[in-house]
C-alpha cells in the first residue's frame, strides 16, 4: 500500500440530528475525530450507529447539523466525501464477477487505469485467483473482502465500516483485523460500528457509545474502552 496517496483527514460532526418522522435516530451528536484515529462505535441496535456512519458517507442527509472532513494540510474540506464506506450489505453485484464489480466502480469513480487498480486491490484482499468468479458463488467472508476492496478503490483517507465483522468466521475476523490494522498504521482514519469485543475492537484507539441517538460515553482510555465495548453486546 502506497503511503502518500491520501491526506490524513479528521471528521467533525457538529450537532448532527436525524429524524425519521417522529422518531429521532440521532440527537445533537457532536464529535471531533482526529486524523488517524480508529474509533469504535458501540450501542444497541437502533442506537444510531448506522445512521451516523451513513451521514458521514453522505448517503443520508442529516435533518440538522453538518459533517466536515478536515484534511490535516488544510483547514476545512467539504467536497465529495473522501471516505470509503463498507455497509452492512456488501454493496457489490452478485451477478458480476469480483473483477467486474471493481472495474465498474473504478470506472464510475473516474480512477485512472481502472484495470490495474482493480487487479492490485484483488491481490491485496487475496482474491486474485477467484477474480473471474461470480460474487454469488462466494462465501460471506469472501464477499466482505470484495466489499472492502470496493471501499478502497479511490484511496480513501477515511474508512467507514458498519459492523464489518458480522457473519465472518474466525479466520475472516483475523484477516479483517490484520487488514484494518494495516489501514490504521498507514494513517487512515477509521470509524466502525461494532457488536461486542473482538480482535477488531482491539484495534480501536477510542470508543464511543451511542444510546437512543445520543453519545453517552466517549473515551480514549484502555480500561474505559473495555467497559464500553463489552457492554455493547448486551
Amino acid at each position: 500500500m502506497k503511503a502518500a496517496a491520501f491526506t490524513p483527514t479528521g471528521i467533525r460532526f457538529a450537532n448532527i440530528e436525524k429524524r425519521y418522522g417522529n422518531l429521532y435516530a440521532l440527537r445533537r451528536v457532536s464529535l471531533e475525530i482526529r486524523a488517524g484515529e480508529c474509533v469504535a462505535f458501540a450501542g444497541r441496535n437502533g442506537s444510531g450507529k448506522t445512521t451516523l456512519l451513513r451521514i458521514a458517507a453522505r448517503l443520508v442527509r442529516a435533518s440538522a447539523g453538518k459533517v466536515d472532513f478536515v484534511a490535516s494540510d488544510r483547514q476545512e474540506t467539504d467536497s465529495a466525501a473522501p471516505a470509503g464506506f463498507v455497509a452492512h450489505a456488501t454493496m457489490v453485484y452478485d451477478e458480476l464477477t469480483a473483477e467486474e464489480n471493481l472495474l465498474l466502480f473504478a470506472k464510475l469513480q473516474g480512477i485512472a487505469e481502472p484495470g490495474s487498480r482493480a487487479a492490485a486491490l484483488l491481490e491485496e484482499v487475496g482474491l486474485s485467483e477467484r477474480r473471474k468468479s461470480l460474487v454469488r458463488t462466494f462465501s460471506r467472508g469472501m464477499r466482505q473482502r470484495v466489499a472492502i476492496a470496493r471501499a478502497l478503490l479511490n484511496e480513501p483517507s477515511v474508512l467507514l465500516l458498519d459492523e464489518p465483522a458480522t457473519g465472518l468466521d474466525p479466520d475472516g475476523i483475523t484477516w479483517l483485523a490484520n487488514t484494518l490494522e494495516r489501514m490504521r498504521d498507514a494513517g487512515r482514519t477509521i470509524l466502525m460500528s461494532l457488536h461486542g469485543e473482538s480482535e477488531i475492537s482491539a484495534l480501536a484507539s477510542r470508543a464511543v457509545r451511542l444510546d437512543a441517538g445520543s453519545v453517552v460515553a466517549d473515551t480514549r482510555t484502555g480500561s474505559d474502552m473495555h467497559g464500553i465495548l463489552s457492554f455493547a453486546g448486551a
Partner: protein
Amino acid sequence: MGVIQKIFYVHVSCAFSAFVAFGTCFYANLRYVFTREPQSDWLGVSAAEVGLAFITVVLVTGPIWAHPVWGIWWTWDARLTLTFVLGLLYLSYLLLRSMVEEPDKRALFSALFGIFAFLDVPLVYFSIRWWRTQHPQPVILGGPGSGLEPRMRVSYLLMWGALTGLLILLLSARYRLEALRASVDELRREADVR
C-alpha cells in the same frame, strides 16, 4: 332542458374548484421538494383530497345530467375522459401516500409523483382531444354554455363563488387537521423522550 339543466351550475363550478385544488397540489409538491417544509406536504395532501372530492361530484353530476339530455350515462368525450384520468392520477397519489411508511419519504415520493402527474395533465388532454376528433362524436345537442341568459349568468356566478368559497374552507380545514396531526406526533415524541 328544465330542472335538470340546473345541475350544471354545480357541475361546472365543482370542476373549476377541482382544477384549482390540483394546481395548488402541484405548487405544494414543487415547494416541498425544494424547501422540505412539512407545511408544504400538508398542503399537498389536503389539496389532493379536496380536489378528489370535487372531481367525484363532477363525475357523479355529469352522468345525472347526461342521461336525460343525451340519452346515455357516459361518453368518452375529451373533457369527461380527462376528468376521469385526472381523478385516477390523484387517487394513485393518495394511495401511494398510504403505502409509504416513513413520513419524510412519503412526503418526498408523493411530491415527486404529484409533479409528474400534473405534467401529464396537458398531455392527456391533447392526446384525447386529437384522438376523439377523428372518431364520430356522440350526439350532443348544442354545447353547454353557448350563450348564457343574464339571469343564468347571475346564478352561475353565485354558484361559482360559493363553491370556490367551499374549496377554500375545506382546504383550510383539512390543512389544520394535518397540522394538528403533526403536532400530536411531536407531543408523543416528547413524551417518549421523558
